[in-house]
């Protein structure tokens, strides 16, 4: 899922205080799982901002709401009214959702309430860590199911480097060495030969380095025409 972190309240307040009618708008899928931007968090943030407005004597009407997902057209239908009514929307969705909202309501000022951080997993309640940087050409089958692009700080494909320190990355004792993990996994499976083989230079064209990406299902042309018409 996509993980994000709510911006500090002060930063958010600075962004929104100039508006008359603000809508704090949650997204109840990915960012709700990490308890940062869901509809519940939207309610809480709405309250905090109202208190702040009262404290500072700022005349602003703050409503809160949210939808299931801000990255798909259909979920916006029932919220269109409240979005139209507002001057500005503080979206708590990930960066994709914030932008999508802006595209659908181009006349509205749209602001991000979250910093979108990474694609990751829930290691434990309240603990999330990064797993995939979307290179577009997955090689997990070559590295025992552990991604060296993401989990090695240097995205080394023929690791580990000389800085691997007792199973940790040189950048921090809190960051496991991705290659140490790969080695341990493959050793346990008796498949170390995979990483004794040379992995050649990566073609980054399928990653963000190749430009903004788009993907189209040709076999869904009819659905697109129906939705448009």
């Amino acid at each position: 899922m996509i993980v994000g972190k709510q911006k500090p309240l002060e930063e958010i307040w600075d962004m929104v205080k100039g508006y008359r009618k603000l809508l704090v708008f949650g997204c109840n899928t990915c960012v709700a799982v990490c308890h940062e931007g869901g509809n519940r968090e939207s309610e809480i943030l709405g309250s905090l901002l109202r208190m702040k407005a009262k404290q500072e004597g700022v005349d602003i009407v703050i409503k809160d709401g949210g939808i299931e997902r801000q990255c798909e057209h259909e979920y916006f239908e029932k919220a269109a009214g409240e979005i139209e009514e507002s001057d500005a929307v503080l979206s708590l969705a990930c960066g994709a959702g914030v932008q999508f909202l802006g595209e659908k309501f181009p006349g509205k000022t749209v602001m991000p309430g979250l910093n979108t951080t990474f694609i990751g997993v829930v290691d434990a309640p309240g603990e999330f860590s990064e797993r995939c940087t979307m290179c577009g050409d997955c090689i997990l089958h070559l590295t025992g199911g552990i991604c060296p692009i993401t989990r090695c700080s240097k995205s080394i494909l023929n690791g580990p480097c000389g800085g691997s320190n007792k199973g940790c990355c040189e950048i921090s004792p809190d960051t496991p060495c991705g290659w140490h993990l790969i080695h341990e996994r493959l050793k346990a499976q008796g498949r170390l030969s995979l990483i004794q083989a040379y992995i050649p230079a990566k073609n980054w064209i399928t990653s963000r380095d190749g430009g903004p990406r788009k993907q189209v299902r040709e076999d869904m042309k009819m659905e697109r025409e129906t939705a448009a018409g």
Partner: protein
Amino acid sequence: MSELKSGSNLEKVLKAGHFAFTGECGPPKGANIEHLREKGSPLVGMVDCVNVTDNQTAVVRMSSWAASLLLIQMGIEPNFQMVCRDRNRLAMQSDILGVYAHGVRNMLCLSGDHQRFGNHPGSKNVFDLDSMQLINMVKTMREEGTFLNGEEIDERPKLFIGAAENPFAEPCEFRVHRLAKKIAAGADFIQTQCIYNMERFREFMKQVVDMGLHEKCYILAGVTPMKSLGMARYMAKSVPGMDVPDSLIKRLEGAGKGKVAEVGIEIALEQIEEFKSLKGVAGVHLMAIEWEHKVPEIAERAKMLPRPKV
């Protein structure tokens, strides 16, 4: 290994069967040519070539290629270093052509310290290629005369290709396999991270020799003399992949006031003496960091002088 690959002094020394002795010189943290000259001049005639680091520890310094050219002007053969952190494959190939055109003949291919603990931690990193792929690319440029994309090079660069290995970084059992990979990828010579645990290094070299790697590649053992107790303790605790035995620290502690540096040098000299006869070791890489003026004394006492003229 019949014809010379690059014609570099280091290559010729090793090929002739001499025990090689290489040094290191970090470029200045500015455009201060005088400072580089002061650091480099003690090394003239003392070593077969001098490593020129590339934004080491991710701290911005004069580029390795620029400092390498200045060393050539001083009569020193550089071992030009390139890390994978700061350059993509375009810039890498471009710089390789450039340094070769200016007379550089040795190149050390490294991953590079992560910029997180450097002095510009907010920078974007590159890591388009890793060190293994860089080694292979330089080899292909030299042997096939083609760029990474297969296009022909208008006069191929012929560099003597080096790489690093750290025998004590975990997972330790994999290090000899990674060394084998680097050699297969094209490494002509290897410089190890500085060694303090001789027992473990002997075991490592035994594995290297068992795999026949010493016959395919020249292996130079890294030596860094301990200047002070503080340095020894720091290396033991804070440098990734460094193995400093307690016995070494105790020996330095027992040195007596003002004598620690001398004991540090004695230890280094003992190591160098052992490396001369350790099977599979083709030379020593002396990293007397910010202690370059001690190199002539160490070279003399290690009986490394005069350096062979090949």
